[in-house]
């Protein structure tokens, strides 16, 4: 009996709701592209750091709102995104920090990808300490003094040596080789992600505990905690040619855009947008902060920036 009563209740409710009517599936369109129907679908890779997300958020917003494209975003690591060029599942990688081996395989050999140019951002990888340490130990920012401080950076994981905290295993890094070639009394430990690095640095600054770690600019977190860079031996052309013999700091890297050849040579307006897209480190940091710290979703973060920078956007799509 109980079952039947529930059943009739549901039925009555359903009928009432149905009676109210509302938009039918055929009349109301959800999804579906806007005005410019000639753009079609664009598949964008999203690599695991927030700066990359900022690039994608803005390009996605402009492509969808101003060009009428449909944009799919796919969260993938760098290597896997490049595989997407071959399979046709990825059209655009917005921020590449330098992968000569992948470039050779997919651009030169298979010719499925094309280098589209620079994003306008300049990337700098390096070793950083929290601000309180740089203040208390001013000479810590010279690599020659690092061994002096090694014992401070000791953790349960570093086996008696100092710890260098690295990020995601997929990031571009020479740190193992650097430790070896510079005779540093350190061990590289992988935190696993950008999130973990940020957590570690934030805690180190709050609690005034020592921390030496891999980090990079452009990066929104630096406006929350202005980490201080440790100077490794200056970069010279070619000093990082052999991955096992690297003994110098990371170079400044102009960040690059790559795209699937078939997509970028098409006359899709989105291809033009990707080609023309260019902005500054400050621009990216701002949008990245909207996303990571203010927790806006992609569209809201992008809208906020686009509304304030319409002139730049117009230059991309004109």
């Amino acid at each position, binding site marked *: 009996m109980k079952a039947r009563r529930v059943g009739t209740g549901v039925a009555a409710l359903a009928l009432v709701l149905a009676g109210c*009517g*509302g938009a039918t599936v055929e009349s109301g369109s*959800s999804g579906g592209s806007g005005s410019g129907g000639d753009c079609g679908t664009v598949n964008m890779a999203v690599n695991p750091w927030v700066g990359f997300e900022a690039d994608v958020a803005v390009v996605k917003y402009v492509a969808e709102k101003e060009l009428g494209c449909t944009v799919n975003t796919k969260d993938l690591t760098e290597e896997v995104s490049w595989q997407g060029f071959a399979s046709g*599942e990825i059209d655009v990688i917005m921020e590449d920090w330098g992968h000569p081996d992948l470039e050779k395989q997919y651009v030169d050999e298979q010719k499925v990808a094309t280098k589209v140019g620079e994003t306008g951002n300049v990337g700098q990888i390096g070793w950083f300490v929290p601000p309180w340490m740089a203040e208390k130990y001013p000479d810590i920012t010279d690599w020659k003094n690092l061994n002096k401080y090694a014992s401070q950076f000791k953790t349960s994981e570093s086996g008696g040596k100092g710890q260098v905290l690295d990020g995601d*295993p997929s990031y571009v890094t020479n740190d193992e080789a650097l430790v070896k070639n510079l005779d540093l009394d350190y061990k590289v430990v992988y*935190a696993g992600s950008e999130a973990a690095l940020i957590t*570690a640095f934030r805690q180190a600054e709050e609690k005034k505990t020592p921390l030496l770690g891999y980090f990079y600019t452009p990066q929104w977190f630096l406006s929350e905690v202005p980490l201080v860079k440790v100077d490794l031996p200056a970069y010279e052309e070619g000093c990082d040619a052999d*991955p096992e013999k690297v003994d110098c700091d990371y170079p400044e890297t102009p960040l690059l855009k790559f795209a699937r050849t078939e997509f970028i040579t098409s006359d899709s307006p989105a291809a033009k947008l990707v080609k023309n897209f260019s902005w500054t480190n400050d621009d990216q940091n701002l949008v990245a902060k909207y996303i990571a710290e203010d927790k806006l979703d992609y569209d809201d973060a992008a809208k906020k920036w686009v509304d304030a920078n319409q002139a730049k956007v117009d230059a991309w799509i004109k």
Partner: protein
Amino acid sequence: MTVLPLSRAAVTKPGRGRIIAAVLVAFVVLAAVFRGRDTLGLVPSDTTALHRRLNDLNHWVSSNRNESPIFLYFFNEIRAFVDALTTLFQNLISQPGFGRPVPVIGWLGVVAIFALVALAFAGVRVALLLAVGFVFIGMQGLWEESMDTLALTLSAVLLALVIGIPLGIWAGLNDRASAVVTPVLDFLQTMPTFVYLAPFTLLFLIGPASATLVTLVYALPPAVRYTAHGIRSVPRSSVEASESLGSTSFQRLTGVLLPMSRRTIVLGLNQTIMAALSMATVAALIDAPGLGKTILKSLQTLDVGVSFNAGLAIVVMAILLDRLTTAISRSKTRRPSRLRLPVLAVSGVLTVFAVYLSRTYLWAAEFPTTLGATDINIGNDIARISGNAAEWVTLHFSDLTGQLKDSTTTLLIDPVQTLLVESPWWLVAALVLSLAFLLGDLRTTVISAFCVAGLIGSGLWQDSMTTLAATLIATAATMLLGVVFGVWMARSRRADLAIRPVLDALQVMPPFVYLVPFLALFAASRFTAILAAVLYAAPVAIKVVADGITAVSATTVEAATASGSSAGQIIWKVQLPMARQALVLAANQGICYVLAMIVVGGLVGAGALGYDVVAGFSQGELFGKGLTAGFAIVILGILLNRITQAAAERRRGA
């Protein structure tokens, strides 16, 4: 550490026990003498010739995918089929399909169909639970993502059952089949999910097809294992009775074996679904649609709240599917009421009507965020509250947890690791082989020798030893929890009711979800990795132990009680020994799950094989090394399982 769970086995044979103790002492002494010699170390960024050869294979495949016949007629065909299957499920419930702007069945239709199935097979209560549960997920603002995950899970589970149940029956009836299938299952289950990702994307590219296939591979073993286990556990007397009545083997299978092992088979279905759900999140790394994506993305922005909300949706879905399958397995025992048919007929009509509505009206197709003027989306609140809670805990406890981590590391993890890693390889090998011989037999020793050789050949001996140390500690902790909670749940119905949902939650809550708060509490460390592995493996071990102890015949326990045994005596002298099979299965599963999780440890500072695997997935020049590390993990799994199993069998023979 290996001998801990087996020490009682050793005690029953005083001679052997003393020899094992002597071997261990000798090992510790020699380890101190030869410390640091012949440790076969390899820097993380270095590779061996074997690793580089695998890299070349990687290159070859990606350049020949559309030319080589093996791709054109085999891998690409499989990909097309699985892709079609998954897309079909997606078009039905989650993505716009068949030229419509919305899925074929909207949220109202999905809720109605699940409620109807539950009503037909499980009763009113489960039907209500399912309806409420699905609506809850919708109110979390995650309907579409959840349906994507469900579509992926359903297609993987469907394939797993189609392949797994016949295999399980075969392995249950035929000893030789079992001998062939078991190591393959061990292999599949121990091979960490991350290891699959690289080769599977290599063969099947990124996207839903690969995602379904990796999920299938991970979800298949429980389906086979539990089916075989169920068939084997049917009492001889029942089978003999049926034989004496002259039934054919097919009649015996359908009339006796399958019905009598139904409970175990459904337990296997449960495990298959749980495994599929947990894998469906990891598969987000290779572009699987669904909740996994939400979780991965929130990790990048450190958003504990959002990832908890999505994790919760997975947990709710798991609980719903678990209750449904469990209720179905018990349904036959109830007497059908007179009203059953009319009620079902009415509900059937209502369901058809609901599906019609969800095809026609937008409000029934896409889950609404408001009802009239009221906001019914509770996802944001859940995210905010859980995010704040995590922050509070971190703020107040991270000093305490830091100390816990440091002391455990110094007192337990470091000594065990030093023993294994800093000792010469030949000394560790000698220890493993002598333990294999003393606990098992000559066969075990030979297999162990092959395993040790494999580890050396992989070029990753030292990383393997680091991982072995973490695995031993995690497995010991898992078994401890398994026995304590398993016994408690078996002896108290109330404990069972309270604990089981927590276990379900832990089992399916994607590990990524608790990694961020763990990282804040315990930093990037081996301790964090071990903790994550224990939390992941313990639920399975606890469930299996509880099940085994419940199965101990009540009359035996009553007889023991009548003869004046205390509760402790009953547990130690009657229930645990009689549930030995279950304990072995628990240890076996525990090791598999710990090893599967050890890779994730590579993401949180545990390094070693886990790191190799993760790095191999994300860096082309480390592909071969990552793959080799995956095999090394499998070899470790085989080694540990063989020795524990042989030890258990030897004791049974005694």
